[in-house]
């Protein structure tokens, strides 16, 4: 938390390494205890969130909305149903609400109280999203936060910050970049970043596409 990601992937500092190995031992001991008690089937400790669920799901939702106006209307009206139509549903995505970025409005999503995040469309949250700097500052200094991600907004753009304090989960529909009109939904999905769907970045066209 306060140590940022350093404590989670531990480069460098000896005291962090010691604490991490303590943690690792505790987790292994707890796992073997729960297996011994018959509470946990070791075969069920699978890697769903590394293999099946991740931000490519959300990128496909965005690309479909960019290329299909009826789908976009549905997505903004009933996010859960429109997203489930592409096969993405389940834990931490039960009640989806999609907010649209435009030339006038920029949306940013945070969970100041914990780490609420739309798992089915974005996977598990990055370390920075759960960190104290982001959770503390997103609501009081959103423009400063955006600048740290390289996102400069004009003063006349309205910034809307969505604090995920209940069981609604937010997905930002980023602005479609100008110049990619010839791209298919499949191609567009490849340029939609996770960070743009949290709202900290805009989607940029790769140089080769912009020149095309």
């Amino acid at each position, binding site marked *: *938390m306060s*140590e*940022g*990601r350093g*404590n*989670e*992937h*531990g480069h460098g500092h000896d005291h962090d390494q010691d604490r991490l190995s303590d*943690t*690792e031992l505790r*987790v292994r001991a*707890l796992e073997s*205890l*729960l297996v*011994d*008690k018959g*509470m*946990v*089937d070791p*075969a*069920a*400790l*699978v890697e*769903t969130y*590394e293999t*099946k669920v991740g931000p490519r799901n959300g990128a496909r939702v965005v690309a479909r909305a960019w290329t299909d106006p009826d789908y976009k209307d549905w997505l903004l009206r009933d996010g859960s149903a429109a997203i489930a139509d592409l096969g993405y*549903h*389940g*834990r931490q995505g*039960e*009640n989806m*609400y999609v907010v649209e970025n435009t030339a006038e409005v920029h949306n940013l999503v*945070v969970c*100041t*109280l*914990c780490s609420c995040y739309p798992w089915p469309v974005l*996977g598990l949250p*990055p*370390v*920075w999203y*759960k960190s*104290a*700097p982001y*959770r*503390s*500052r997103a*609501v*009081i200094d959103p*423009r400063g936060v955006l600048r*740290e991600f390289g996102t400069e907004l004009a003063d*006349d*753009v309205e*910034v*809307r*910050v969505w*604090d995920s*304090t*209940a*069981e*609604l989960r937010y997905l930002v529909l980023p602005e479609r970049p100008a110049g990619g009109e010839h791209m298919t939904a499949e191609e567009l999905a490849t340029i939609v970043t996770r960070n743009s769907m949290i709202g900290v970045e805009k989607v940029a066209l790769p140089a080769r596409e912009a020149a095309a």
Partner: protein
Amino acid sequence: MNGAHDMGGMHGFGPIDPEPEAEEPVFHHDWERRIMALNLAAGAMGRWNIDMSRFARESQPPVQYLSNSYYQTWLAGLEKLLVQTGLVSESELSSCRSEGQIAEDLAERVLTAEQVPTTLGRGDSFRMDDEVPAKFEVGDTVRVKNRHPDHHTRAPRYVRGHVGVVDRDHGVFVFADENAKGMGNRVPQHVYGVRFSARELWGPEASARDCVYADLWDGHLEPA
């Protein structure tokens, strides 16, 4: 509770320093993957709900909460819940030796590898079918009650006492603040998206254009 988890508006944590998106792995250590999976597996016992989990994590001493990484907090929360609900005894946790298998009715609930996709794909039921009247309508001006409960609440400190406008009625959900007190406390209430101007929350130096939305239950709000 006014804990270290309630971070909105705090100063002094420094820059965000994000890892580049393309380079960030889902987990940075194998033990993170394991504690995530253990949380899902132990949760299948049905002895706690998501709000009890949140309360277990956030009710650590503030110094500990702030010095933990996020998955260390998940470990601390899981240990607390296992003991609180009697699934694991204090002595089992300290010795890491099993003093007996779980009861038969619980054994039936053990999550198998085949069930994982269905269980995760199904999600949890936060919405309730109860037809409770909404206390507020879209467009109403509301104030967040100035309350400081020592138990779990989803009304962050930075909105308490402040006035906002109801932007949307999300429908009827289980009230998190009560749900955190234990199983069998499912109180149905409307949840609203409430819009607060940045100046209402942060004073005259904030941008006149910007705003913050928080999702709040009937129990958090009063007419303004």
